[in-house]
């Protein structure tokens, strides 16, 4: 049954996942071509100077990509469930509602995490091939909140979509935007170094929020 539920999620999301993977690869290729071209034109010393002394982060083009990817995956997975209240069919399947919700959200969370990990690691590997280890670590910490924002955006989409009443969707949406906004307050390299606990906390918080929406749907709030 779980396999079948995952099959449904796969059918809904496969083209969107492919699109996210291709878009991510294109952005990364573009960023490295751009940095490589700069190195060839002005020399590696100048680029290093820009990065080290002027605190510039050269891979900022990917900043909003994880956010967009999280939203796209969340919507592709849950909009079909919300339209025509199709989620009632899903909750009528002979599995506990908690299992159904966990499998559906777990699927999205896992595939998004896997995609992000591939993108994150490949990005850092590319950065490491051009820059020193310390710069790579700073880049990792600069990129991390953006990818966490992508995960949170996915969970926030579930939180908003599954909520049965439009009146409550608006505050849910605003809560989601406000919390995710905190991950984009500063683009300064390594600005979020001391906020890893905060990032974990908001991810957990969104996971709890979505259960609230599931509960409200289940008890028939309108």
């Amino acid at each position: 049954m779980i396999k079948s539920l995952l099959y449904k999620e796969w059918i809904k999301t496969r083209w969107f996942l492919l699109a996210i993977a291709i878009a991510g690869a294109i952005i990364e290729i573009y960023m490295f071509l751009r940095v490589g071209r700069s190195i060839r034109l002005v020399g590696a010393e100048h680029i290093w100077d820009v990065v080290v002394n002027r605190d510039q982060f050269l891979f900022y083009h990917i900043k909003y990509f994880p956010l967009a990817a999280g939203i796209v995956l969340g919507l592709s997975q849950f909009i079909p469930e919300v339209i025509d209240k199709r989620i009632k069919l899903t909750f009528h399947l002979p599995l506990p509602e908690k299992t159904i919700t966990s499998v559906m959200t777990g699927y999205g969370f896992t595939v998004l995490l896997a995609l992000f990990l591939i993108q994150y690691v490949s990005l850092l590997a590319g950065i490491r091939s051009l820059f020193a280890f310390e710069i790579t670590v700073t880049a990792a910490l600069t990129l991390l909140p953006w990818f966490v924002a992508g995960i949170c955006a996915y969970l926030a989409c579930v939180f908003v979509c599954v909520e049965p009443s439009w009146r409550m969707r608006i505050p849910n949406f605003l809560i989601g935007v406000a919390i995710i906004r905190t991950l984009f307050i500063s683009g300064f390299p390594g600005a979020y170094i001391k906020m890893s606990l905060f990032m974990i906390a908001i991810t957990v918080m969104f996971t709890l929020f979505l259960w609230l929406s599931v509960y409200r749907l289940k008890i028939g709030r309108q």
Partner: protein
Amino acid sequence: MDTVIECRNLTHYYGNRCIYENLNFSIPQGRIVGLLGKNGTGKTTTINILNGYLQPRSGECLMLGYRAGMLPPTVKQKIALLMEGHVQYSFMNIGQIEKFYSAFYPKWDKAPFYELMSKLKIAPSQRISKMSCGQRSQVALGIVLAQNSDLLILDDFSMGLDPGYRRLFVDYLSEYARSQNKTVFVTSHIIQDMERLIDDCLILDYGKLLLQQSVQQFLSEFKRYRLVSSQEPDWRDMPVVHPEKIRDKIEFYSTSDKKTLSACLSRQNINNQLVEESLTLEEAFIGLTGKY
């Protein structure tokens, strides 16, 4: 006979609007029962309460002995649901949806599903979202039948279907349910289709249940009467519903026999060349619930 569905003292409001109060009914095993009512009388509300998607203000519903909304997965496997509008996973095609559902139901029988699908002129890879409303209804029905469940709940199955598809749906379902001794609980506001399908009817009016009876008994007892008279009878003394007088033509409905009604009219000195008419289920429904 075992009771498959039981609702006790069910009361529900949307805001201040009463949908019904103290609704009581039960559905025995092996019967095809139609929940009939005009729009807004609470048919879908009842289905939603039964499936646990809505909590009533008070009262309780039991399905196969378990409280609605708290059905264990093994019981859910015995209940097939057809949602209003034949909603299904429209992002799937026929093969995908059959594969998907078959994993959930131990008694899954794909034969009736593919038999119905063979009647549709569609490509196997065609997505359900690209099908016509009638074709989608057959996919939804096929899935419900293939589940081979003990109880089938069908919410407003006739919505959006042309007469041909409605007839196909009713005939197929009726044949299936009777041959397999299934219990079917079906709602609709298109009554003409129901006469071919249901054994018993529950008729809901705004706020209350008007009737729970077998269709045969209802139609044998509930008649329409006509007479021509310039004088309007005093209806307060008569066991009639929804009397109507247009010029000198009088029409009313009653479960009383012609002799009793004629005696009532005679007492009021009204010429009573009373004409008794048997009714179809649709006419009887309108007679009981009124035109407005």
